[in-house]
């Protein structure tokens, strides 16, 4: 497989949007799916489907094996020490809620501090808010600087003896800032504070090695990694897997259930209550195969080339204001256009087949700080090329023409 020619692996690009070829620049929202992943889902339903981990019949064995093979694959992909450290969830949002709930229940009390940043997506703020309202915890926000970065010193400054967890994004979905997560984890380790990393934007675009990063929790959105929708996962360090209480109760997560007492299952099973996404988990192995075949480093460098080209081209348009100028930028490019609201931009670009997102991107805290209610965002995936950027640039010019009339 060749990255330059990768669009043909994605069936969605065969269609026209408003009579024009689809230029998909919304991968930070969700990525498109390669044919191998789509095929794996149908193949699973056609030949292997059964619920996993319960029955003993042939299909159940087949399905369970496929399901658990993905866990092994994820363990390897993340370089996690134990397969039990991989917990499937319905998304990165649920992964963070799981930690906020289970860790919060056991370790966060009145006056304890949760340290997050102003860059966080609502899914890495709102779950912590529950601990503020229910337990009287305090949420502290590390400030974003004028370039859209959060500096290590800013985190350092806010750590106190009451800090019970640091929950930060790996890559901002608005400014694109890549946070110094390894340094933050090192700092937190000195103070014995666990760190959760929201890897929603980080995982699809960079090498993620749990041994190198050293964090306690890493949340992943599988559907942004060319994987099926409705699937996420949580890497949880073994000591927490053994220590934390369950998140949800139900089938599958128990050891023994009696009228007066219930004991819970061990390992990841404790956190996977009820029937799990099955075809989705099975097919996610194909997403990882797809990424591995191309090589995540090659994907990252290809995306960076397109991103840098995008910055160069959009900067030539004097009416465009690019949001943020971080030291290192992930695959997002947020911008505003003089006198034209992002919603109008998005609708007009769509007419040219160019799919972007407009709004606050679930980051109202950050947009308040920036003093703008909404931005337009073009985000890059493996299938984007320079031609897509040229089409984006032309479509923006068309949009300006509509408003000049």
């Amino acid at each position, binding site marked *: 497989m060749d990255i330059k020619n990768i669009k043909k692996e994605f069936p969605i690009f065969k269609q026209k949007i408003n009579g024009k070829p689809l230029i998909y620049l919304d991968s930070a929202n969700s990525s498109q799916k390669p044919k191998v992943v789509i095929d794996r889902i149908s193949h699973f339903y056609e030949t292997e489907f059964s619920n996993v981990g319960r029955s003993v019949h042939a299909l159940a064995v087949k399905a369970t094996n496929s399901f658990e093979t993905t866990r092994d694959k994820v363990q390897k992909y993340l370089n996690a020490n134990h397969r039990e450290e991989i917990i499937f969830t319905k998304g990165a949002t649920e992964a963070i809620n799981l930690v906020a709930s289970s860790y919060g229940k056991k370790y966060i009390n009145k006056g304890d501090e949760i340290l997050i940043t102003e860059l966080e997506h609502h899914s890495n703020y709102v779950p912590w808010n529950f601990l503020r309202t229910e337990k009287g915890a305090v949420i502290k926000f590390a400030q974003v600087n004028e370039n859209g970065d959060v500096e290590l010193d800013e985190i350092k400054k806010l750590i106190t003896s009451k800090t019970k967890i640091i929950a930060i994004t790996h890559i901002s979905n608005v400014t694109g800032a890549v946070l110094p997560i390894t340094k933050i984890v090192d700092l937190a380790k000195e103070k014995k504070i666990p760190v959760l990393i929201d890897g929603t934007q980080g995982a699809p675009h960079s090498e993620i090695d749990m041994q190198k990063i050293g964090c306690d929790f890493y949340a992943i959105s599988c559907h942004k990694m060319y994987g099926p929708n409705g699937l996420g996962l949580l890497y949880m360090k073994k000591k927490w897997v053994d220590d934390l209480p369950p998140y949800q109760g139900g089938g599958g997560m128990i050891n023994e259930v009696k009228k007066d007492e219930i004991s819970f299952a061990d390992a990841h099973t404790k956190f996977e209550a009820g029937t799990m996404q099955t075809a989705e988990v099975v097919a996610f192995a194909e997403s990882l195969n797809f990424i591995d075949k191309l090589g995540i480093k090659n994907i990252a460098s290809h995306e960076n080339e397109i991103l840098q080209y995008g910055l160069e081209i959009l900067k030539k348009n004097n009416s465009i204001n690019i949001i943020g100028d971080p030291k290192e930028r992930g695959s997002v490019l947020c911008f505003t256009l003089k006198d034209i609201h992002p*919603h*109008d931009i998005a*609708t007009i670009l769509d007419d040219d087949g160019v799919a972007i997102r407009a*709004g606050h991107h679930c980051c109202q805290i950050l947009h308040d700080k920036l003093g703008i*209610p*909404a931005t337009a965002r073009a985000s890059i995936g493996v299938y984007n090329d320079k031609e897509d950027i040229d089409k984006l640039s032309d479509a923006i010019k068309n949009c300006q023409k*509509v408003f000049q*009339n």
Partner: protein
Amino acid sequence: MELKELYQEIILDHGKNPRNKGKCDGFTNDAKAHNPLCGDKVHMYLKLNKDKEIEDLSFEGEGCAISLASASILTETVKGKNLSFFKKINEDFLNMIKNKKKITINSLSEDQITTITSLSGVQEFPMRVKCATMAWHTCLSAVEKK
């Protein structure tokens, strides 16, 4: 559906130069709303007299051309009219956007009908319907506030 029908001159004009923007003096009723999906905001202010007439009305808000134009057109259309007129035109407007119905109220000038109808292009853009209807829903909430 042509994009040009959505971004007509009337809409662009009202979007760029919204009428009755700000907080009107001595308002008696107000209501605000926002769209949590996109962050658009609108705050309607009405000055009602004892004869149930809208003596003055205005709005504050931020949003796209469609939402600003819609709020602007609303204020221009119902300023100086009584509440029963407002309720009727509000119903007509929402029916036009949501059910593709024509404006039936007969006390409007042809110009006013053209202006209001300019927003009907939103029908073809389901994701933008809320942009066009938010000010109207909010104005009704302001009126119904005791």
